[in-house]
């Protein structure tokens, strides 16, 4: 069957899609977007995390046909391309990685990337946590948000560093306080 889907803002279609095929397979094997990784195909590892209509999902558990007419954003869609080394500076003085999303840059700076297999999924999931947070999330919140993303290399500490850094920078950019106002300072 044919599947039409908007990926990273671009309308794409894939032909000869098997009815039981996953969105992950279509992205990687038919649309040339290998950013989302295939590791477990059973929702356990999170390395295939993408946005589907604005919420993060395991692309391996979405049937390709279920994405018909919907909007997908993969890790490729978070950056606008360009160089990868933050030291590189273009002629205009902009970092040559200017295309990288701030979350990606923080992963690089914090040393949160080793083999890198888990990174695209973690970047997308962390991106969604930070986009929805007011202030820097508490460690417990970060751990909970990333509970479905496995990493076999880093031991997670540097990943937590990267997310804290990215959240702090997002607050600075949005001019919001680092610590959100106390909620439920209650009436009971």
């Amino acid at each position, binding site marked *: 069957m044919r599947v039409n889907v908007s990926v990273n803002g671009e309308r794409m279609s894939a032909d000869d899609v098997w*009815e039981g095929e996953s969105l992950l397979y279509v992205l990687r094997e038919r649309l040339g977007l290998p950013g989302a990784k295939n590791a477990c195909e*059973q929702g356990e590892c*999170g390395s295939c*995390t993408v946005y589907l209509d604005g919420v993060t999902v395991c692309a391996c558990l979405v*049937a390709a046909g279920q994405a018909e007419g919907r909007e997908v954003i993969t890790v490729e869609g978070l950056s606008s391309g360009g160089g990868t080394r933050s030291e590189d500076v273009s002629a205009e003085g902009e970092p040559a990685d200017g295309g990288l999303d701030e979350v990606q840059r923080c992963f690089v700076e914090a040393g949160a990337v080793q083999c890198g297999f888990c990174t695209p999924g973690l970047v997308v999931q962390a991106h969604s946590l930070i986009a929805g947070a007011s202030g820097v999330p508490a460690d417990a919140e970060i751990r909970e948000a990333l509970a*479905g993303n496995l990493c076999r290399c880093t031991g997670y500490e540097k990943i937590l560093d990267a997310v804290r850094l990215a959240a702090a920078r997002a607050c600075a950019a949005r001019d919001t306080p680092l610590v959100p106002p106390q909620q439920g300072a209650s009436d009971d």
Partner: protein
Amino acid sequence: MDFLRPGTWEEALAMKAARPDATPIQGGTDVMVEINLDKGRPAALLDLNPVAELAEWSWTGDGAPMLRVGAGVTYARLIAELGGWLPGLAQASRTVGSPQIRNRGTVAGNLGAASPAGDGHPPLLASGALVEAASVRGTRLIPIAEFYLGVKRNALEDDELIRAVHVPPAAGPQYFSKIGTRNAMVIAVCSFAIALRPEERRAGTGIGSAAPTPRRAYAAEEFLAGELDWDGRGPLDPALARRFGELVAEAASPIDDVRGRAAYRRHALGVMARRALGWAWTDHTAGPAGRAPERSGDSG
């Protein structure tokens, strides 16, 4: 394999009637795992995502109001939008998988799969939910305790789909408790839910992952109805709580499997039941603060 895409609920029912061998797919968090791991090839997939009304919830019922939670309402939305009225189900939902799984998975899918370990079942049993099953022949409301027929078997006919689950808003404190190896991403070793209904002087219970189907602990419920000092607001008698735990454990018929041994499950159920009753009773005696908020508008 065929991929069926109904645009409306009526079309979905017509397609299911024409193709009783089609497997409905909502969040896909059970269905796709089976396909990816080649544990079975459905003859057809019936995608319910395009049926927009399934993603809505509303109030229903004359007299006693119920929340009608559409089959497409995800765990994430249930927690965010309905947690105040359905605290037990929301607590259980929070323990399902990971954020990515909760963004897709649904209570209806949990009911469709009917795994004895599904986390939605104990709170649905404890609060006395109804499953709204529909086909081209009509609609029926199945009491939740009659819905589970066996391991991964439920009361749906071949041509039926789950339209919604009807759940009464909490009439008192509710708690869910689950044993697993990690505080995320675990299938329950066993689980327990309690829902107090002080005005009726009754409590509902639900046991998960400790019998071929999720089930209520009837004798334990009767015991609380008769023995709890519903009017006094004093502390819980420890002997009463212990006896309640024993009765819950006796209601289970667990097996040894990779996740745990039968003896451990029975023991853990007794402990969970005793503690959950303690938490609920503490809230109850603390007064109306533990009550669900007033009813307000529908979703969407």
